[in-house]
């Protein structure tokens, strides 16, 4: 089943309260996905050439400051480590390739959830309301955010199998649905050098998108290839550096509702999430057409 939500801020007030607004939307989708929950927030972009990393370790008492200090000596790093649950955000004064390679070499037990200038991904098994508390989601600001509640159908309930999935720098994917040809696609993508941590179908969709972007496709071209090559049912919510995009498969069985006001654009599996937002009753709400890309992006200042 699964529930997906997205919120794109059109005013500074919504940006400041993004987490407080997204949390009830996510909570409302608990019935659709009680197994695990996750979010991607786009916030506080770092300067060009630096890389913001969201890292995870199974030990909640993990010494993130020691990691940061070692990273600082190797490449330079911001003074501050922002901890949320068993995740932490560190900023490396290096490009993503070097920063990620350093983590993998020196801290192989640490998982990289996301990398980019603005993206932060948090995800964990358990009920969405516990996730919201543990990760203090309500305190997060940001320009836009995506969320997911998971009801696992085809692979294990693990942190790595939770959504969102990182699909590249500042890119992520959340998914409601299931793919039927993911094993074949995973084999093909492994030959193309894409790495996978799980047996999860959405990770394959994320890997597929990562591969097409690496090959130089635009987002529209990536989505066109997905519609052609992915078999199954899906509503995808795709996070980018400056906004998000929504696409449904050509049959479009999996639900999706979009709504817009002068203050925000919201996406959800069901309207009842959107109903938690201020001004929802006056929003223009509609259902996205099948095999059609909908996209909102903020102009960079």
């Amino acid at each position, binding site marked *: 089943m699964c529930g997906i939500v997205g919120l794109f801020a059109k005013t500074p007030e919504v940006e400041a309260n993004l987490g407080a607004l997204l949390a009830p939307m996510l909570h409302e989708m608990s019935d659709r996905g009680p197994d695990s929950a996750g979010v991607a927030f786009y916030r506080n972009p770092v300067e060009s050439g630096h890389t913001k990393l969201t890292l995870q370790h199974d030990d909640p008492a993990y010494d993130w400051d020691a990691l940061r200090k070692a990273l600082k000596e190797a490449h330079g790093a911001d003074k501050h480590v922002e901890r949320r649950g068993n995740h932490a955000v560190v900023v490396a004064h290096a490009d993503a390739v070097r920063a990620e390679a350093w983590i993998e070499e020196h801290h192989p037990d640490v998982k990289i959830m996301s990398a980019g200038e603005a993206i932060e991904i948090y995800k964990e098994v358990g009920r969405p309301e516990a996730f919201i508390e543990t990760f203090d989601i309500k305190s997060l600001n940001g320009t836009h955010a995506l969320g997911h509640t998971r009801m696992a159908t085809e692979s294990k309930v693990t942190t790595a199998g939770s959504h969102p999935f990182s699909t590249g720098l500042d890119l992520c994917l959340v998914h409601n649905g299931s793919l039927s040809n993911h094993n074949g696609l995973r084999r093909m993508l492994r030959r193309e050098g894409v790495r996978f941590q799980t047996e999860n179908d959405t990770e394959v969709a994320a890997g597929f998108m990562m591969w097409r972007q690496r090959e130089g496709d635009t987002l529209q071209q990536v989505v066109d290839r997905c519609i052609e090559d992915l078999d199954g049912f899906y509503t995808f919510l795709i996070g980018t550096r400056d906004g998000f995009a929504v696409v449904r498969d050509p*049959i*479009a*069985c999996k*639900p999706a*509702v979009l709504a817009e006001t002068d203050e925000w654009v919201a996406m959800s599996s*069901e*309207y*009842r*999430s*959107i*109903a938690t937002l201020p001004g929802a*009753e006056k929003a223009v*709400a*509609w*259902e996205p*057409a*099948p095999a059609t890309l909908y996209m909102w992006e903020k102009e960079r200042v």
Partner: protein
Amino acid sequence: MATATDIEVVDLAVTPLRELNQRLHDAASGGSRSWRIVNPNGAHAIAVGIDAELDVVIEGHTGYYAAGMNKHATVTIEGNAGVGVGENIMSGRIHVKGNASQACAATGRGGLVVVDGNASSRCGISMKGVEIVVKGDIGHMSGFMAQSGTLVVCGDAGDALGDSIYETHIYVRGSVQGLGADCIEKELKEFHRAELGRLLEAAGADAKVDEFRRYGSARQLYTFNIDNAGAY
């Protein structure tokens, strides 16, 4: 106990959904005929399974299967309706003032469903006698395996309209993106003009009979033969 002329107001922000639906079911044996439901906030299964001549107004948007299996009641949704509004409606009337999501009036056996806005994909899927009037557009795969009843679309229809249709009458005023298997355009005969006129009037639709085209089954795909009825 409330009398027949009282208006019963139920606030779903404080009243559990099951309590509301139980009270609506109990109304079959007496009490208020008029109900107003406030703060629906997209909850699922609102006013499902009514079996009485009630007048129910829902002030806002509904989730899945609103007014499903409706019998005798008039249910008005003053907002958008989620997946499967009026699913398996038996009789009565459902009026959606906003848009309807997928599978509007799916498998409906009787009654009238009116959507003032658009209905998305699979509108009237497997309908079995319900009458549906959509004042806007309908999405793809609408009228899939539609068996009987009538589907009227004042706007455009999406792809694969009436795929594997049996004996439902479909009338579309605007364009049809594509017809499904075994669905063809058919002549608008006097009987159909009368049926269409009656439904446009019943729905309060601002459209003229002459603006519509009729679609139905080519009867090439299904092989039911009345002479073989005893074998089923």
